[in-house]
């Protein structure tokens, strides 16, 4: 009998979907595999590829087996196709098909819609690895380097997950799309990644932490809503990806938190109480809190753009079709069809920011973005607790959702972080107060010196409170290959 919990290694591709008995898909994936390995090998500097990294790998997809830790070279990481266990007799949770048995095959009428959603999700996964490819060179510790590589290999696996769906369920189109995923490249002139935030640079580690906190959180929200899908293989894929995504959230939240902690400790040790005494604080080799606020402003607003238009018929169609749900759909207490409900959406009327009720079905994106904002605010609150505990008077804030937006109703107006509409000239004049300047970037860059000694950390970041897999403080998370 097919074992759908434990990971099978009887093909080149670890999987729990019975690949060895599915010759056609196996062949397609094996054909795709070398291109993937090439993509990986060309991406990350060679000495890291040859290093032993203490990574987590799934040996089964039930809770007991999916977090086994051991040293592995990244190119030998067991990328594979892992789906969460099937829920028996699962029903479509929302939309016009609500209550019908979930689809095990792609329903013809929704084929294109589904393919597009899977391709967009798939495109973000390699995109972020491309953005982060050089960060190992400036890792502030072996602990952080290990976390970076864990994020990278798991994004790689998420690409695999999406490619499997394309190859298995979308025939020739799917194969072409799978190949295209390896052709497009972050920041490329000719073939950029599909979403803007994945073409931005990740030039330094604070950017990386902000990215994993804010941008990967958008990924988490998208995965949450795809996990509701009536197309069961997509739902199961996304449910398993979410357990891995949680690690990325962890890297972001603790990374920013530890950066703040190092700043607070340095300020207190040197008797600096004014957080705006930027020059003196920077002389201590830490990043001042106002600059951290600016980085937050940037990454938060880029991430808000990922949610698309506030009012969207595409999103309405996907929900109605039972293809994509809402965040925590099962826990929402309504009819899950939204035929008669409304939802408040912001809009610009006569140069003013207003809220108006629109049909809830068309406001799916807005609702997901609101859930995102709430989720993102939690960590900011916990960072502020660190600051409050240190006695320094400063509070980090999420800027107004109209600030610095390229997509949606706010893209036509200039809004400051407090939500005041102003002229574009005024905004341009003042943007250096709100967003990181080149000088800010240069300063952060100047701190990006590698720290490769086990248990040691660069000046600008505090050690973690708990080690990965409960390891002690000086554990050698990466055994660096010395060329």
């Amino acid at each position, binding site marked *: 009998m097919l074992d759908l919990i434990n990971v099978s290694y009887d093909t080149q591709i670890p999987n729990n979907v019975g690949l060895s008995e599915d010759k056609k898909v196996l062949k397609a994936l094996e054909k795709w595999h070398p291109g993937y390995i090439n993509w990986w090998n060309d991406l990350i500097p060679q000495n890291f590829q040859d290093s032993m990294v203490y990574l987590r790998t799934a040996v089964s997809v039930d809770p007991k087996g999916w977090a086994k830790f051991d040293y592995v070279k990244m190119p030998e990481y067991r990328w594979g196709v892992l789906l969460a266990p099937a829920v028996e007799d699962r029903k479509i949770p929302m939309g016009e098909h609500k209550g019908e048995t979930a689809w095990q095959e792609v329903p013809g009428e929704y084929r294109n819609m589904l393919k597009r959603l899977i391709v967009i999700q798939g495109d973000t996964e390699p995109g972020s690895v491309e953005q982060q490819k050089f960060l190992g060179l400036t890792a502030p510790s072996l602990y952080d380097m290990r976390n970076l590589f864990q994020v990278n290999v798991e994004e790689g696996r998420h690409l695999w997950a999406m490619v499997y769906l394309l190859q298995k369920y979308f025939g020739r189109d799917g194969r072409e799309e799978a190949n295209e995923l390896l052709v497009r490249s972050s920041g490329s002139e000719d073939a950029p990644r599909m979403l803007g935030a994945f073409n931005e640079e990740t030039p330094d580690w604070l950017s990386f932490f902000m990215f994993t906190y804010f941008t990967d959180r958008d990924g988490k929200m998208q995965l949450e809503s795809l996990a509701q899908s009536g197309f069961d293989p997509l739902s199961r894929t996304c449910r398993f990806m979410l357990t891995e995504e949680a690690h990325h959230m962890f890297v972001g939240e603790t990374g920013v938190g530890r950066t703040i902690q190092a700043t607070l400790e340095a300020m207190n040790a040197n008797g600096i109480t004014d957080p705006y005494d930027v020059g003196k604080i920077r002389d201590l080799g830490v990043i001042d809190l106002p600059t951290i606020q600016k980085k937050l402003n940037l990454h938060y607003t880029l991430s808000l753009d990922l949610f698309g238009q506030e009012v969207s018929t595409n999103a309405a169609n996907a929900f109605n079709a039972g293809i994509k749900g809402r965040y925590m759909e099962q826990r929402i207490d309504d009819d899950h069809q939204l035929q008669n409900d409304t939802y408040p959406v912001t809009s610009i009327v006569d140069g003013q920011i207003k809220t108006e009720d629109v049909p809830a079905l068309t406001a799916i994106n807005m609702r997901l973005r609101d859930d995102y904002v709430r989720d993102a605010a*939690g960590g900011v609150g916990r960072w502020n607790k660190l600051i409050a505990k240190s006695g320094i008077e400063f509070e980090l804030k999420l800027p107004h959702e109209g600030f610095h937006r390229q997509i949606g109703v706010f893209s036509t107006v200039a809004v400051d972080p407090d939500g005041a509409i102003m002229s574009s000239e005024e905004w341009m004049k003042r943007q250096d107060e709100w967003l990181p300047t080149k000088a800010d970037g240069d300063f952060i860059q100047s701190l990006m010196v590698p720290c490769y000694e086990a248990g040691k950390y660069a000046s600008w970041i505090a050690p973690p*409170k708990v080690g990965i897999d409960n390891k002690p403080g000086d554990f050698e998370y990466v055994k660096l290959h010395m060329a």
Partner: protein
Amino acid sequence: MNAPVKQHLIDPEICIRCYTCEMTCPLNAIEHDDNNVVVNADICNFCMDCIPVCPTGSIDEWRVVETPYTLEQQYEFEELPEQEDIEAAPASADQSAADPVAALLAEAHAGAGGKAKAPVSSAKPTVNMYTLGKPATMKVQGNYRLTDDPDHDVRHIILDPGGVPFPVLEGQSVGIIPPGTDEDGKAHLPRLYSVSSPRDGERPGYHNISLTVKREDKGLASNYLCDLKQGEDVQVTGPFGATFLLPSKPDAHLLLICTGTGSAPMRAFTMQRQRSGATGGMTMFFGARTPESLPYFGPLKKVPEAILKQHLVFSRVPDQAKEYVQDRMIAQEDAIADMLQDDRTHIYICGLRGMEEGVEKALTSIAESVGIQWINQRDVMREDGRYHVETY
């Protein structure tokens, strides 16, 4: 008073509110508000599905409590409450009868001359997680003879808790329940043994535990243990003990004084200090009849002196004068006197009760040589969590 129960909690200072645990829990025992993620003690059945999916480690927290923290209390947590020292509750006659383990430990620690305290920086121990009514089942992974002396059959026994969490710190004990019943037809009470492996396992990361057991003539539990074969199941209670623990400070210096199987916690200490890269060093006085009857004689020889300075002392070597640990301590008077005056020093004494008197006398005389009154010094160190005695 309610009987203490084990409660699963989440550390709000480490948790990132990803709610993966909540989505994983098969019983919906985990929920959250805008502040915290909490575990409903009425529902949680310790299935442990939530433990590996947590990206932070905040989920692996346990407290033994008389009344579980309510959801409302947990929602208000800014940080985790500390484990209350349930073992050290005042041992009235009634309670000793009700809790034989606490009574046994109190008796074993009596030689410290007052109420035992854990080192300030020690890791927080989990206690009483498994009880006589609900023991953990462990599998024997190995049973090795440590000594080469027909009168002294000492065994190194490795037990694997499998998927069951058994968080035990060096210096803690576990209870072994011998199978069968006593004359009155009642199940046997657990016998206590110190673990001789460090916190992350005999093999690092595997969380298996080892025991050091000497076969006692007619001893029910010791004969049962020493005869165990690989693959057999053993019923285990505990962990027990919240004071005979290691300091976490890497620069602490440990003075370890033991005889026979009193070496069990010392082995755990040594391994943990080695694995954690502690810098403060250790000095050991270890007494046995002969090298052949000294447990871990071979492995000890491989521990570098920079980590553990060893004084292995023998009382029955043919053609040699009898030497006991206290004799060697007196011979090392200057070194020990320096240690007594250094507040990084932590003293641990473990072995047969008979060793207490001699060691106490030696320490008194060494302290006097530098003008210190030992009784006072001992009380200061004990209050500080730096003087520990466990004898039986």
